[in-house]
């Protein structure tokens, strides 16, 4: 379970999150929507400590994140997929996936490679295990990044606009993989995206962040078919048409 409890975050003098509260239960798929600059990335990055809240607390399974326990909490709970993939360019796909398994989870090399192959199968890229990121298309890189996140077997998967840097023809392959994952019951997923079609299909809940606040928290059905307020209507009309 994840709890963002009264999170405020300022960069310098500007506060970009004003009192964000969010509770995500185990296995839930939450899609975060909102206009550009609203604070979606900042909020999701608080979950794994890439940003430290100026005030308020992050709880993972009831344990409050502190500078001291951040690393051990993250190792236990969280994996992240980024907009820019952020694969390690000097390592093959296989090495990208096994690094954390071997160095952090103390698996043997053979175990780690077996696990990596399983995960590459899930994203449909087993044959690319020995490729360097530079030899892969954007969509393939992102699928390797998803395999890397899956491999560590952490309960919470965080996605920050995983398809925004991709050409339209490659977005589908990544969204399909993510959709497949969203049907897995055990995984908790928090996804920042602008893909409304995906949000409708994958989300248990839609969280709308606007101006540094969670202004709507509802089912996808209610959110899309009966937009709860003017801002959401405005937002939807811009992204859909």
């Amino acid at each position, binding site marked *: 379970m994840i709890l963002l409890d009264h999170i405020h975050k300022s960069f310098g003098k500007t506060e970009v999150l004003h009192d964000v509260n969010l509770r995500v239960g185990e296995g839930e798929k939450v899609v975060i929507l909102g206009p550009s600059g609203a604070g979606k990335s900042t909020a999701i990055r608080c979950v794994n400590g890439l940003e430290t809240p100026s005030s308020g607390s992050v709880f993972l399974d009831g344990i409050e994140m502190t500078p001291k326990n951040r690393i051990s909490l*993250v190792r236990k709970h969280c994996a992240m997929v980024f907009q820019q993939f*952020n694969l390690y360019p000097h390592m093959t796909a296989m090495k990208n996936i096994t690094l954390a398994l071997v160095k952090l989870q103390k698996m043997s090399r053979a175990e780690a490679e077996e696990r990596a192959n399983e995960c590459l199968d899930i994203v449909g890229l087993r044959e690319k295990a020995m490729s*360097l990121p530079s030899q892969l298309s954007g969509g393939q890189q992102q699928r390797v990044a998803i395999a890397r996140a899956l491999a560590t077997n952490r309960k919470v998967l965080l996605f920050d606009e995983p398809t925004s840097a991709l050409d339209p023809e490659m977005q589908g392959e990544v969204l399909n993989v993510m959709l497949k994952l969203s049907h897995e019951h055990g995984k908790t997923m928090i996804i920042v995206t602008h893909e409304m079609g995906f949000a409708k299909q994958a989300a248990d809940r839609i969280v709308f962040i606007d101006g540094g606040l969670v202004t709507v928290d509802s089912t996808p059905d209610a959110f899309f078919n009966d937009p709860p307020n003017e801002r959401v209507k405005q937002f939807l009309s811009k992204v859909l048409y």
Partner: protein
Amino acid sequence: MSNGPFALWRWEMLWSDKAVIFDGFVTTLLISILALLFALLLGVIFGLLGTSDRKTLRMVNRVYVEFFQNIPLLVQVFFIYNAFPFLGMRWSSFMIGVLGVGIYHGAYVAEVVRAGIHSIPKGQFEAAKAQGFDYLQMMGYIVIPQTIKIILPPLTNQAVNLIKNTSVLATISGLDLMYQADSWASQGRLSYGPAYVVAGVLYFIICFPLASWARWYERRIKSREHIQLSDNAKDELMMMAEDVL
């Protein structure tokens, strides 16, 4: 007998005394290697400090770099040689060569290391942190291996500068190549011409291949460029790579 600066007999005299020059050459190599190792050690430590999140650590980096980069090496060497003894520290010329020149170039190496780490995209640090790697693991597995490739050319140029700069030791009886060439000429029949030419050629023989290799390697990584660098940092590094003082 001709008395021109490059008269044949001067060359013959130099040839028969070649052991002296060779001695200087070996000393220069030895000092250069040790000073380079010391400079690398300091450069990595202070370079890492320069990329710290903590302001005080970055300040330590700035003070070290700006202090040693902005005072001529000759002043530093004279200070250690002539003023340190009054503080009860008497360093041999050899030690001044290794430590003094090493500290001076460590400041340049620190800048190269700092710029190199800055050129690694932020996403790499974030991916490592998001996976739960601690600082040393992040640096060791992810950041430094990518940094080394791109800083090798500017580091090699620093090595070239360092080798050439050991020649200031001639002014404090350093027994290095330049000192031996100069003292050989001044003690004998003033055959400065051949002595300096031979010293120059010997410096060139070490430095030119290093500089050429650096240029070649830099072009090669530029053309492959499978490491994505942030643009500013790339410019900074390229400037350093081209900057042979």
